[in-house]
């Protein structure tokens, strides 16, 4: 016996299509927001790197002061 295809009737599929369109719009919004967050995170990373560099500089200077005060003869 040949198998006949069985169909499901969807009455208000215009509403489903409209909802799908809305969901697609929200998805685009979410993508845009995520891209912005990525951008902000990159900026943050850059600032953190600058922080790290500055702290390393400060550490070097503090080391120099410390050594120059503790062992003055080495830095004459």
């Amino acid at each position, binding site marked *: 016996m040949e198998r006949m*295809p069985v*169909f499901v009737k*969807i*009455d208000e*599929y215009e509403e489903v*299509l409209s909802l799908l369109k809305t969901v697609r719009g929200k998805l685009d919004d979410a993508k845009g927001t995520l891209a912005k967050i990525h951008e902000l995170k990159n900026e943050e990373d850059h600032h953190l790197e600058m922080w790290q560099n500055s702290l390393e500089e400060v550490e070097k200077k503090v080391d120099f002061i410390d050594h120059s005060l503790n062992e003055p003869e080495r830095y004459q």
Partner: protein
Amino acid sequence: MGWLFGKKKVPKVPLPEGHLVDDRALRFPSSPTSRERVIEPEKVKEAVGIGSKPMMKEESIFPTAAPAPMPKPKMSKMPPMPRPMVSRRPVPEPMMERSPMESMSMEGPLFVKVDVYQRVLGEIDQVKEDLQQLGHLSRELEASGFNNEDNFTKLKRSVKNMHDKLLSMDKVLFKSQGD
């Protein structure tokens, strides 16, 4: 000669008799047929996909070698010819490719095969699970953001403390130099 002037033979099969036909049967129907039943040629073209994209010449299908440059014709000294009048007809814009959803009419119920319907339901379930996972991730991110803020406050505090100590150290060193 009997065969020439003999009796006429009567056909054994009776001839069909004519019958009256109603005149209305030969007329075209006065009321127009319903639009749903008439399949316009444009719709057929849309369904088949003809005309949705303007086809270019053979170059879109077969790659062709670049045409050899034509030798420039020698310009003879002729009086300039008047330009032919060209009627400016509006150039038809190429038709945009329509998605299958747009080309479908939006009226009436939709019939979907059972296996497709089941697959759609499965996909919806998957999307729900993904959204739940995204919510969980966003909560984690909020928590980590709070931690970041906390750490940043600590960092600022320690830098300020360091600055104060350096200032007091500077003060002590300069004071001893001034004495």
